[in-house]
C-alpha cells in the first residue's frame, strides 16, 4: 500500500513533469529512423497487390541489375535457409516471404537491399511476379461455407478455413437462467477491424558483426527481451550473441508486440550483405499489413427479470483472424481475456464461445490497446445492458446501478472464473453521474426531443483486466509472464533502475523513477531509468496489456523495498543500535523517539560502498533486484458518460461532453494518468465514429492510408472531464492497477450508446461502428450497413 506520510518536495508520487519530454519537445528524440549506422544499406519490401493468388514465378533479374541494388531476397531463397515460415504466437506459422501463394493484399513477396532507400523502392518495380488469381475469402461469415476457397493449403490436409472453437463459463447454467427469465434480448453486433496506427511505423536495423558474430537489432518493439529470445528459438541464433535495442518508440498500442517479416528480412539482409540493413515501412504498409485489432462478429443474448435484475449473459463470437493465426496473447487463451465479458455485473451465469476463422486479410488480431480483447468484451456487455434497458424502458444508469457488483462482494469470482481483486463500482458511477449532472441532462434531452432535436446520453461501466500475468496461468511461447527489475544506489545516493518493459510514450522514465523514489525517498530527479536494451536490462516480457505498472512496477517496488530493508541494517551498524530500534521516514532511518539521530539513504549508500564495517554476512553496495510473478491480475474500472448531438438532417454526430471517472488504484503521476485517459478517450471516439478497415469483394484493403483510415483530431474531441476514485489493489505492493488501456476499453460503448440513445425516437436499436454520418442516417432509415465490407 502507498505510504501516505509526508514526503519532501520532488519525492515519490505526484504531478512531476515528464523527464523524457525534455528531449521530445526539442526534437531530440532518437527514433529508429533517426539512427544511421556507418555503411548502412536500406531494404524495401515488394508486396502482393492481390488478396489471394498463386505465385507462378518471380523474375528478379532486372532488379538485381540495378546499379545500386546489393541483393534481392525471395521466398525461395528463404526456404533454402529454412526461414520462409516462422512460428506465430498462436500455434500457427506465418510466411516471411510468400513461397506458394499470397494470402492477403500487402503480403511480403520479395525484399530488395540497396545503397539508399530510393533505389530500393525503385528496384521493387523491376521485379516481375507472375500471379494466378484465386477467389478470395472476404466475408468472415462465409469463410466456413462448404465451397469457400481454402486459404491455408500450406497446412497438410487442410480442407477448410476453420481455426479453433473455444468456450468459457457454464453453458447449462446460462441456458437455465434464460429459461426462468422474464425477458431475453438478443443483438448481433460487429466490433470492426481497426488498426493501432502508431505515429511511428514499424522498422528495424539489423547489424551483424561478421567478426564477433554478434547481431544487434535496433527495432520498434514493445518487448525487446521477448524478441531476442524468439529470434534465438526460431533462427537458432545463440542468444548471448543477440542484442535487441528499442530506441524511442513513437507509439505502439500493441502494433509493436510481434515480430514482422520485415524485421526478419533486415536480419537476413545483414547476414547476406555483411553490412547493417535498415527496413522502415511506410504508412500504407503499416496500415495494410501489420497487426490489426478486433474483427469480432458477436451475437449477444441477455436475460433479466422484468424489474431489471440481470440473470444471465451469453455471447457467441465469430472471430476473423486473417490469413495466419498470429494474435499475440498468453498461449492458453485463444480469445485473449474475452471471457471476462460478464463485466461489472452480478449475474448468475454466463457463457461465451469463440470460433476463429481464416480470411484473405492481414493477420494479427490482438493489438491496439485492448487488454487482450477486454475491449470487445466490454463493448459486448455494455451494448447488451443498454439493449436490455431499451426493452425494459428503464434508465440505463438505473439498470446498471441495480446490477453492479457491491463493494462487499470483493474479491469476486466471476462466472467464468476470474477473481476481481477490488472494486467500489457504485461509487464510481455515482461520481460520473454527479459530474455530468445526469438528471439535468435527461431533462434537457426530453425538451430537445419535443423540438425534434437529437441528443443522446450514453453510459459505459467497464472492468479492465490487466497485468498479465501469473506464471501458473500465463505464458507466451512457454515464457512465463514475470518481469525483472534491478535497482542500484550509487555511493552518493543517486540511483539507477533497470527495466524489462518498454515505454512507447507512457512515460516510464518518469513513473518508474517515481516508484523507486516513493519507496526509497531518493528524489525523482536522482533516479535514472534504463530500458530498451537487452544487454543492459533484466529479462521480462515487455509493455502491452497495461502490464508495466502491475508487473514491472511491482518488481521495481519490491526491489526498492529490499534496498530500504538493507539500508536499515547498514544504518543500524552506523548508529550502533539494533535494527529494531529504527524507524523509517521518507529517505531516512532514525532512532525511534529521537528523530535527530538518523542516517539518510545517501549517507547509508556511501557507507555501503566505504570502509564502514557492515553487519555480519552482508556484502557491500546498495543494490537489489526482483523478478515479480504477479499473484493475480489487477482490475481497474471506471464509469463513463458521453453526451452527443446528432444532426437529424445529415446524421453527423458531435461529441459534446465526455465524463470519465477512472479508478486505477493510487496514481503514480496523476498528470500522466490523465494523459493516458485523454488519449484513450480520443481513441474511443475514433473507433466509435470513424476508424475502419473494410475490404471490397476482391479483398482490397479500403483503409490503406490516413485519408481512408481516419483518426480523430482535436476538432472531434470535447474537453474531457475526468474524475477519480481510488480503490487500491490488495495484492500489488503499492496497490497500483495500471491504466494504459482503460479509456480505450471503456469509451467506445459510451459513445455508441449515446448515439443510439439519440436515435431512439427513430426506433433504432443498434447500428455497428463506425457511426459515420452515412451509417447514422441509414440507421435512421432502418437500414444500417455492414461495416466490414465495402459500401455498396
Amino acid at each position: 500500500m502507498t505510504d501516505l506520510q509526508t514526503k519532501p518536495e520532488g519525492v515519490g508520487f505526484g504531478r512531476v513533469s515528464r523527464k523524457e519530454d525534455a528531449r521530445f519537445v526539442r526534437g531530440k528524440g532518437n527514433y529508429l529512423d533517426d539512427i544511421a549506422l556507418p555503411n548502412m544499406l536500406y531494404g524495401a519490401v515488394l508486396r502482393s497487390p492481390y488478396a489471394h493468388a498463386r505465385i507462378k514465378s518471380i523474375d528478379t533479374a532486372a532488379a538485381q541489375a540495378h546499379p545500386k541494388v546489393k541483393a534481392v531476397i525471395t521466398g525461395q531463397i528463404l526456404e533454402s535457409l529454412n526461414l520462409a515460415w516462422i512460428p506465430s504466437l498462436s500455434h500457427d506459422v506465418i510466411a516471411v516471404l510468400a513461397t506458394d501463394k499470397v494470402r492477403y493484399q500487402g503480403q511480403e513477396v520479395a525484399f530488395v537491399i540497396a545503397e539508399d532507400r530510393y533505389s530500393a523502392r525503385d528496384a521493387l518495380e523491376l521485379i516481375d511476379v507472375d500471379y494466378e488469381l484465386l477467389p478470395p475469402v472476404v466475408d468472415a461469415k462465409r469463410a466456413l461455407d462448404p465451397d469457400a476457397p481454402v486459404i491455408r493449403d500450406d497446412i497438410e490436409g487442410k480442407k477448410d478455413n476453420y481455426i479453433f472453437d473455444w468456450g468459457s463459463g457454464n453453458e447449462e447454467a446460462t441456458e437455465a437462467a434464460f429459461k426462468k427469465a422474464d425477458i431475453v434480448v438478443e443483438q448481433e453486433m460487429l466490433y470492426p477491424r481497426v488498426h493501432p496506427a502508431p505515429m511511428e511505423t514499424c522498422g528495424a536495423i539489423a547489424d551483424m558483426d561478421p567478426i564477433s558474430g554478434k547481431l544487434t537489432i535496433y527495432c520498434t518493439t514493445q518487448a525487446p527481451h521477448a524478441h531476442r529470445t524468439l529470434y534465438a528459438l526460431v533462427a537458432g541464433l545463440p542468444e548471448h550473441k543477440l542484442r535487441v535495442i528499442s530506441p524511442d518508440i513513437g507509439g505502439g498500442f500493441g502494433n509493436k508486440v510481434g515480430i514482422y517479416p520485415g524485421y526478419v528480412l533486415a536480419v537476413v539482409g545483414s547476414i547476406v550483405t555483411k553490412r547493417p540493413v535498415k527496413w522502415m515501412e511506410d504508412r500504407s504498409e503499416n496500415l495494410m499489413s501489420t497487426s490489426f485489432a478486433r474483427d469480432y462478429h458477436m451475437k449477444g443474448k441477455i436475460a433479466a427479470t422484468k424489474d431489471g435484475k440481470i440473470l444471465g449473459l451469453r455471447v457467441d463470437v465469430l472471430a476473423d483472424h486473417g490469413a495466419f493465426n498470429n494474435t499475440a496473447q498468453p498461449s492458453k487463451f485463444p480469445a485473449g481475456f474475452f471471457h471476462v465479458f460478464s463485466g461489472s455485473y452480478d449475474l448468475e451465469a454466463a457463457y461465451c464461445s469463440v470460433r476463429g476463422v481464416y480470411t484473405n486479410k492481414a493477420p494479427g488480431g490482438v493489438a491496439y490497446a485492448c487488454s487482450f480483447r477486454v475491449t470487445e468484451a466490454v463493448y459486448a456487455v455494455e451494448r447488451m445492458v443498454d439493449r436490455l434497458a431499451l426493452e425494459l424502458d428503464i434508465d440505463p444508469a438505473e439498470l446498471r446501478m441495480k446490477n453492479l457488483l457491491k463493494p462487499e462482494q470483493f474479491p469476486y469470482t466471476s462466472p467464468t472464473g476470474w477473481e476481481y481483486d477490488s472494486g467500489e463500482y457504485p461509487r464510481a458511477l455515482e461520481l460520473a453521474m454527479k459530474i455530468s449532472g445526469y438528471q439535468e441532462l435527461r431533462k434537457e434531452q426530453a425538451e430537445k426531443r419535443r423540438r425534434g432535436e437529437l441528443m443522446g446520453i450514453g453510459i459505459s461501466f467497464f472492468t479492465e483486466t490487466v497485468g498479465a500475468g501469473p506464471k501458473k496461468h500465463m505464458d507466451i511461447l512457454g515464457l512465463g509472464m514475470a518481469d525483472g527489475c534491478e535497482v542500484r544506489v550509487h555511493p552518493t545516493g543517486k540511483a539507477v533502475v533497470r527495466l524489462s518493459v518498454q515505454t512507447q510514450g507512457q512515460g516510464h522514465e518518469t513513473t518508474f523513477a517515481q516508484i523507486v523514489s516513493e519507496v526509497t525517498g531518493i528524489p525523482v530527479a536522482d533516479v535514472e531509468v534504463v530500458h530498451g536494451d537487452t544487454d543492459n536490462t533484466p529479462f521480462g516480457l515487455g509493455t502491452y496489456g497495461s502490464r508495466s505498472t502491475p508487473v514491472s512496477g511491482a518488481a521495481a517496488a519490491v526491489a526498492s523495498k529490499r534496498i530500504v530493508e538493507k539500508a536499515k541494517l547498514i544504518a543500524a551498524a552506523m548508529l550502533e543500535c539494533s535494527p529494531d530500534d529504527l524507524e523509517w521516514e521518507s529517505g531516512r532511518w532514525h532512532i525511534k523517539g529521537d528523530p535527530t539521530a538518523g542516517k539518510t539513504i545517501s549517507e547509508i549508500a556511501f557507507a555501503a560502498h566505504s570502509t564502514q564495517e557492515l553487519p555480519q554476512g552482508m556484502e557491500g553496495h546498495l543494490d537489489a533486484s526482483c523478478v515479480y510473478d504477479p499473484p493475480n491480475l489487477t482490475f481497474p474500472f471506471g464509469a463513463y458518460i458521453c453526451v452527443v448531438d446528432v444532426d437529424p438532417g445529415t446524421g453527423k454526430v458531435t461529441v459534446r461532453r465526455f465524463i470519465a471517472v477512472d479508478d486505477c488504484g493510487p496514481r503514480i503521476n496523476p498528470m500522466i494518468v490523465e494523459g493516458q485517459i485523454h488519449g484513450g478517450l480520443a481513441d474511443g471516439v475514433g473507433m466509435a465514429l470513424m476508424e475502419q478497415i473494410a475490404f471490397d469483394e476482391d479483398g482490397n484493403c479500403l483503409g490503406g492510408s490516413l485519408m481512408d483510415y481516419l483518426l480523430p483530431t482535436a476538432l472531434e474531441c470535447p474537453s474531457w472531464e475526468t474524475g477519480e476514485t481510488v480503490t487500491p489493489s490488495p495484492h500489488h505492493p503499492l496497490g497500483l492497477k495500471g491504466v494504459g488501456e482503460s479509456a480505450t476499453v471503456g469509451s467506445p460503448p459510451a459513445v455508441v450508446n449515446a448515439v443510439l440513445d439519440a436515435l431512439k425516437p427513430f426506433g433504432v436499436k443498434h447500428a455497428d461502428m463506425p457511426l459515420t454520418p452515412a451509417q447514422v442516417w441509414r440507421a435512421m432509415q432502418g437500414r444500417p450497413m455492414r461495416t466490414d465490407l465495402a459500401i455498396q
Partner: protein
Amino acid sequence: MQVPAPIAYERATSLSNAIELLSRHGPESRIIAGGHSLLPMMKLRLARPEVVIDINDLAELDYIRANSDHLQIGAMVRHASLMNSDIANRYFPIFREAETVIADPIVRNRGTVGGSLCQADPAEDLAAVFAALKASVVITGNNGSRTVPISSFHIGPYMTVVEPDELLTEVIVPLRTHVGSAYEKVERRAGDWGIASVGAMIVLNSGQISEAGIGLAAVRADHFRAVEAESFLLGKQPTADVIAQAALIASENCQPVADQRGPEDYKRHLVKELTTRALNRAIDKAREEGT
C-alpha cells in the same frame, strides 16, 4: 516513408519562364504549386512526372483584387489567403465558409486556387464554389491568354482543358448586387474530403430570384453544377416549397457513386439537405444586402 520515382526539378522565375520550361520539357513535365495534391500522388507513384516545374516564386500570380465588375484571383493565391481575404469575402462569404472546411491549416497554408482547379478532383470544394459563382478562368500559354467559363473548364475527373504547355493564371468572378452566397459540406472528420458539398449563390431582384448558382462537389455533377435546379429557381419567389423543389432537382442532377464515405442514397439525400440549407442561407444574405 513513401518516396516518389526519380524526378528532375526546375524553378520558374516568371510566368513566361514557366511557360517556356513547360514547352521545353514537354508533356512529361508538371507544374507544382502548393504540392498538396501532386506530391501525395507522386509518393504513391500514381503520378510520375519526369520534371516538376516549381511556380512558387511567381508572386505575380498571387493577388486578389476587385474592379467595378469583377473579382480577380491569381492562380497562386493560397487557400489561407482566400479564406482571410476581406475583399473576396465582402462580396462572397462563400469563400470563407468553404475554405474553413477545406483540408486543414497545413494544407491551406500551401495549397493554391490554381492547383485546386487544375487537380480537378471530383470532390474539390473550390470547383463547386466557382461553379456556383459562375466564374471564368484565364489560361495562359505560348500564344497568350484565353478565358474559359468554369462550366466548360473540367472535362472529367482529374481532367481540364488546360494543355500541357499552358498554365491557369487567374479566376474571374463577376460581381453582383443583392447577392448572397453560402457553402455547406458534410465530412466524416475535420480535414476529410466531403461526402457531399453544396455551394449556393442567389441574386434577388424585387423579392424574386434573378440569378441562381448551385455548385456540387463529390457527387459527380456535370461540371460541378446543378443546372436544372438553377433554372428552376429563376424568376421564382424563394418560398420553402420552391427551395425544397430545387433541392430535390439538385439531388437528381448528379451521379454520386458509393464509396467508403457513403452509399449513393445517402449522398443524394445529403445533396437535397445541403442544397436546402445553402439556398436558405444564401437567400437570407441576399435579403440583408438588399435592405
